[in-house]
């Protein structure tokens, strides 16, 4: 005989686990189903966990969660073939409570987070694939899994099944991706002794650093690379939109190899030992790609709802917030025992009123514009490098003369009018 729960959550990533946690905390009967061997075993992200959204779920989580290092420095590199222009910020206040963000290893963090949901009362089942939603009279009433006697029923099914959201597609909530709506990211965890990491990144005990790398890290294609410090390993990875990968005939692992052997990057990795290789799709379609997020007896959260801000590399925090908002809507729906689309649209309203949809709307054209006009990463980054080199080389030319030369080299290369147009377009895209 099949059981009926208040809520079934499909997928124990940050979105699903947040939703399960909040539902269970409010006394709902929750079943959390994960396809991996354990939560986190199939999950991939660069490795930055934001404090704010996590704290809203579990106050002072940093006292018990398996975190790697609090990030006290964020660097940005505009990288050319044999040079790099850097800027960034380092602040000791980020190394103290309440912190800003942390590096994490997802395999450990997700397990811990799911355990918190279980302690709160959610039931977690691993190694189980949900093959479809059970729909009756236009309403989702449960899920079918790949196990014998695999049907389970619930008032609400939460689709937190990640970027590909097969279940969302089955319900017709979203279509297959276009190649410019997703990025393919490949990364490696490289083991390196703690002392070496501290020396190379100029860090002390329990201080972390993130480096975002633009330009030659993607061979000028639309995307970024990253280098993050864990306790005794580094996360290094690179991602570009599928469409630019196809256009430039790039293979993702070739790009990662290129990055790892790049003269600006290689010294950081020297002597390291590759421990893990991971690849994942990231939904980067932004505002316009967000599907229908609520239906009769069903809501969609996290990556499955395409909630990623590619420009600010935010995703897990949006996942957590969306999971929480979905849970709050379900709790309200439970009060009047009404799980219709109209009732669950409380979640949609909350989502569209929150920072998530506001941020996605702000950047709704950005990726598209940068993809259509590849000069930003392809041309301007090398130009910046040449300008910096010229400006900082001491060769007897006066500084005023140098400024003129630098400006002239930029406008010569691209033409004054084009430069102004590029600046205006970029400003409009992100304003």
């Amino acid at each position, binding site marked *: *005989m*099949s*059981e009926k729960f208040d809520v079934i959550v499909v997928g124990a990533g940050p979105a699903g686990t947040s939703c399960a946690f909040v539902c269970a905390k409010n006394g709902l009967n929750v*079943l959390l189903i994960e396809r991996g061997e354990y939560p986190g075993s199939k999950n991939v992200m660069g490795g930055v966990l934001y404090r704010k959204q996590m704290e809203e779920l579990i106050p002072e989580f940093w006292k018990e969660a398996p975190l790697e290092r609090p990030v006290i420095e964020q660097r940005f590199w505009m990288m050319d073939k044999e040079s790099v222009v850097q800027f960034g910020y380092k602040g000791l206040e980020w190394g103290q409570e309440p912190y800003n963000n942390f590096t994490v290893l997802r395999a450990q963090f997700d397990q811990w987070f799911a355990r918190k949901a279980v302690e709160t009362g959610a*039931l*977690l*089942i691993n190694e*189980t694939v949900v093959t479809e939603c059970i729909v009756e009279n236009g309403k989702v009433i449960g899920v079918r*899994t*790949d*196990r*014998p*006697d*695999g*049907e*389970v029923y619930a008032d609400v099914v939460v689709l937190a099944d990640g970027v590909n959201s097969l279940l969302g597609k089955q319900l017709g909530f979203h279509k297959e991706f276009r190649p410019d709506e997703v990025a393919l990211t490949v990364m490696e965890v490289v083991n390196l002794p703690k002392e070496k990491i501290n020396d190379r990144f100029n860090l002390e005990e329990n201080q972390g650093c993130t480096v975002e790398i633009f330009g030659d890290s993607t061979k000028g294609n639309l995307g970024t690379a990253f280098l993050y410090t864990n306790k005794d390993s580094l996360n290094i990875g690179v991602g570009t939109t599928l469409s630019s990968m196809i256009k430039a005939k790039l293979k993702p692992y070739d790009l990662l190899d290129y990055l790892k052997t790049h003269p600006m990057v290689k010294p950081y990795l020297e002597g390291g030992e590759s421990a893990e290789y991971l690849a994942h799709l990231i939904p980067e379609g932004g505002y316009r790609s967000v599907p229908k997020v609520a239906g009769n007896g069903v809501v969609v959260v996290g990556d499955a709802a395409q909630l990623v801000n590619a420009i600010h590399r935010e995703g897990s925090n949006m996942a957590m917030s969306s999971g929480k908002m979905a849970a709050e809507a379900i709790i309200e729906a439970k009060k009047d025992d009404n799980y219709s689309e109209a009732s669950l649209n409380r979640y949609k309203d909350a989502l569209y009123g929150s920072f998530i949809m506001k941020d996605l709307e702000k950047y709704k054209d950005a990726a598209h514009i940068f993809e259509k006009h590849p000069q930003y990463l392809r041309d301007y980054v090398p130009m910046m490098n040449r300008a910096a080199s010229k400006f900082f080389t001491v060769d007897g030319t006066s500084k005023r003369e140098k400024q003129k030369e630098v400006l002239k080299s930029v406008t010569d290369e691209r033409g004054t009018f084009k430069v102004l147009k590029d600046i205006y377009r970029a400003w409009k895209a992100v304003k």
Partner: protein
Amino acid sequence: MHIVVCVKQVPDTKIIKINPKTNTLDRRSAPAILNPYDAHAVQEAARIKSRTGGTVTVLSMGPPQAVAVIKKSVEIGADRGYLISDRAFAGADTLATSYALSKALEKIEQESPVDLVICGKHAIDGDTGQVGPGIARRIDIPPITNVIEVSKINSDEKKIVVKRKQLNGYELIESQIPCLLTVEKEINDIGYSPMPNMIKAARYEPVIWSVADLGEVDRAQLGLKGSPTIVGKMFSPPRPEGGKKIEGEPTEQIKELMKLLEEKIDLFCFKA
């Protein structure tokens, strides 16, 4: 029919690393799993139960996190489980472990008489295969090791017939029950557990017993104190050297091979 299955949590030795300095297992390098042979033991108990009815109880000894293997056993088909967990058990060798488990078995027996005990052939971290027979000896029931099939079981006549794996073939053994079986992997295939079992296991809270819960126990026989085993030396087995490739014309190759075989004749013949 009340079947008790003894299970152990072990590091997954398929991926575990060995500390090159101490030659000991680096237990942090591998996840903890239910000993694979024990999984087959639980599955067999569930299969017997489906024929005869009754209850399958699992029993384990280990740190508190070993409840995970009891929950895993419930997924496979066990009804309930007990974990004995206490600092006093720490450092136990096979002698002390079989003593502690037999004491727990006696307690289970008091609650509901046990008809059959099943263990895995051995644990993949120690490979000794001693605990099963050790338990049988202590609770005075016959042990039958290396079982590959439970052919017949009759709880009214208190009889069991099993196939036991031998180097060249198998033995068919009839025994009284209660008895203790240790099982090989070929005894069954572990299926994909049904959803209701998964939900039951996710909810299940195993009972944890400390030494005090076991009643009259001779503490001198527990844990490190009760373990006379001394590990003399540990080493990784040497890697086999690459063989020699014989090249040339076929007839020459055969000549060369015959010559080599004659030289190393000792390797192929047992001396009288």
